[in-house]
């Protein structure tokens, strides 16, 4: 039982990170109808910016960890959001009314650009940081000396995910911007006719998606303690899978999909073999898609006439 609880914690934390990235995929798909393949790399950029701003702050002589973390979070969200905005502006917007595959190809190209950009500008080496947030709690001491451990950084990852998700749900359902986004999702032409600035709304979608990816990047940096220029690829694929599993276009679906993938991977490694954890995750994805083609929470797409 204790063992199960420990693995549950491991899976939830991993799933939270996947979910945070998956939201970015699902949001862009919901509104523009394209898969933003560069999103995994935006996440990587977010991790790097968090690392750089962290090092700058430390070298400036700041020692208060909570203050540093807050500044790092804000800085990396802001700069990564700028990346998201720029990419949409130069790579996607000019192609928006082109044929359907054009922005997707442009996104794949953008993904290469970002990977190579950070490889050249930051070097190809793995960039480690020493553990910043240490310590944790022993939740339960088992009979055979097995202690269920919950570390502070795990608490922080899950908390950050919950806060971000809550903020974001509020933004979509309660604000003017959210209403514009939902309008664009349903019908861009009609939304434009009714006075919604479609271009601006789509830009904001990318900005918010990138900011969320930056949060994920920073959590990743703190949790695993390193970033490298190719980490966006695998994380991006996993998060994309999570978005599809949850039902692409659905916000709670992305989070649910992320948690599902994280939990499947963890429990498969826990009770079967570690070697086949990716096989397990993707097999379950296929099974789910056979029986629920639109994913766990996806709505069947209505053909627009």
């Amino acid at each position, binding site marked *: 039982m204790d063992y199960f609880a420990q693995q549950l914690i491991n899976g939830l934390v*991993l799933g939270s990170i996947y979910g945070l990235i998956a939201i970015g995929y699902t949001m862009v798909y919901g509104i523009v109808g394209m898969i933003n393949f560069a999103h995994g790399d935006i996440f990587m950029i977010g991790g790097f910016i968090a690392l750089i701003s962290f090092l700058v702050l430390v070298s400036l002589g700041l020692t208060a960890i909570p203050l540093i973390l807050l500044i790092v979070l804000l800085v990396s969200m802001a700069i990564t959001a700028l990346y998201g905005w720029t990419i949409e502006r130069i790579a996607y917007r000019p192609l928006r009314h082109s044929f359907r595959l054009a922005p997707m190809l442009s996104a794949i190209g953008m993904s290469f650009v970002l990977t190579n950009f950070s490889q050249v500008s930051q070097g190809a080496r793995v960039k480690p940081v020493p553990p910043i947030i240490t310590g944790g709690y022993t939740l339960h001491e088992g009979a055979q000396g097995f202690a269920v451990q919950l570390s502070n950084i795990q608490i922080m990852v899950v908390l950050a995910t919950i806060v971000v998700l809550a903020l974001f749900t509020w933004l979509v359902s309660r604000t003017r911007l959210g209403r514009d986004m939902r309008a664009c999702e349903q019908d861009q032409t009609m939304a434009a006719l009714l006075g919604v600035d479609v271009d601006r709304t789509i830009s904001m979608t990318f900005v918010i998606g990138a900011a969320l990816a930056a949060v994920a990047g920073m959590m990743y940096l703190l949790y695993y303690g390193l970033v490298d220029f190719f980490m966006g690829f695998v994380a991006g694929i996993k998060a994309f899978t999570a978005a599809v599993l949850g039902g692409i276009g659905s916000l709670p679906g992305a989070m649910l999909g992320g948690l599902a993938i994280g939990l499947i991977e963890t429990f498969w490694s826990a009770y079967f073999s570690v070697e086949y954890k990716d096989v397990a995750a993707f097999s379950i994805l296929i099974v789910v898609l056979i029986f629920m083609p639109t994913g766990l929470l996806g709505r069947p797409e209505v053909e627009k006439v």
Partner: protein
Amino acid sequence: MKSLKLIGLALGASFALSASAFAQDITIAVAGPMTGSESAFGRQMKNGAEQAVADINAAGGVLGKKLALEADDDACDPKQARSIAEKIGSSKIPFVAGHFCSSSSIPASEAYADANVLQITPASTNPLFTERKLWNVARVCGRDDQQGLVAADYIMKSFKGKNVAILNDKTTYGKGLADETKKALNKAGFQEKMFESYNKGDKDFNSIVSRLKRDNIDLVYVGGYHQEAGLILRQMRDQGLQTVLMAGDAMNDKEFASITGPAAEGTLFTFGPDPRNKPTAKAIVEKFKAKNIDPEGYTLYTYAAMQVWTQAVAKAGTTDAKKVMETIKAGDWDTVLGKMGFDAKGDIKAIDYVVYKWDAKGNYTEINPKGS
């Protein structure tokens, strides 16, 4: 007008330089992971090779010619290693010091054999490298069957009756080393409690760490590279697990400690007796120190590979790979690592491994020095 002339002059000079390079120099190569997660070792190899070439040229070169060095990046990827090998082969380079990862060295060696290139690896320890009866391969480091023996010996002595888990990363090197260690342990009548593999490149090992915790593992032996080993260690400590981690020679870079932080303390690994402490290495170590480079890990091994080749070329009077290899296997060579002789397969005759331990300050030292 003046600037045009200058450009002309510079162009002329550079042409002259490259022309002379073409006519005079012997180009040799160092190949290894200059990028990617193993790039710390690629850097060690490049540092060693550059210093060796500089020193050899300062002493007058070989066969009356100077050496020029080319560094190639395989990113520890077998496909890329193979294509680099073909490139090196087609540009008539007679000698390559490389590669680092066994999974790169082995496929590359076949391309080198076809193109008449002599290959000495400073670092690939998988037994298979020299076991395939290829004429063109040699290594200046040890083999994993010997390394596994030393690791098993240490485990038998210090962890007898305790729970041991063996993990590997499914690479040629990692799996090979884990298998050899397991074989040696089982032969000595010791049964490991868990034998698992993970994917190289994974970042999340929490699940496997919880398994170690459930099975009360006292020592986890990792056949793999330093990045994954570092992450496993870090996640063990995060889960409150004080299990000792032991691994092979791919841990001998300070980068390991920068991944783990102070958690590195107590981690064990096997490697040759510290080359930096050998009397033959003293002067060269000073040269590195003056450049602010710590010649750790495989730096001096790469240096030695360069020395062996250069001395054999001088003795054979040719750079023809077949003749040079015959010469190498027939003689004894003075290297920075001491006297070195090779057997018919291309392995060095005297091999010994020792166990190292990391301390809290991010340094590692031998724990049972036997001398060289």
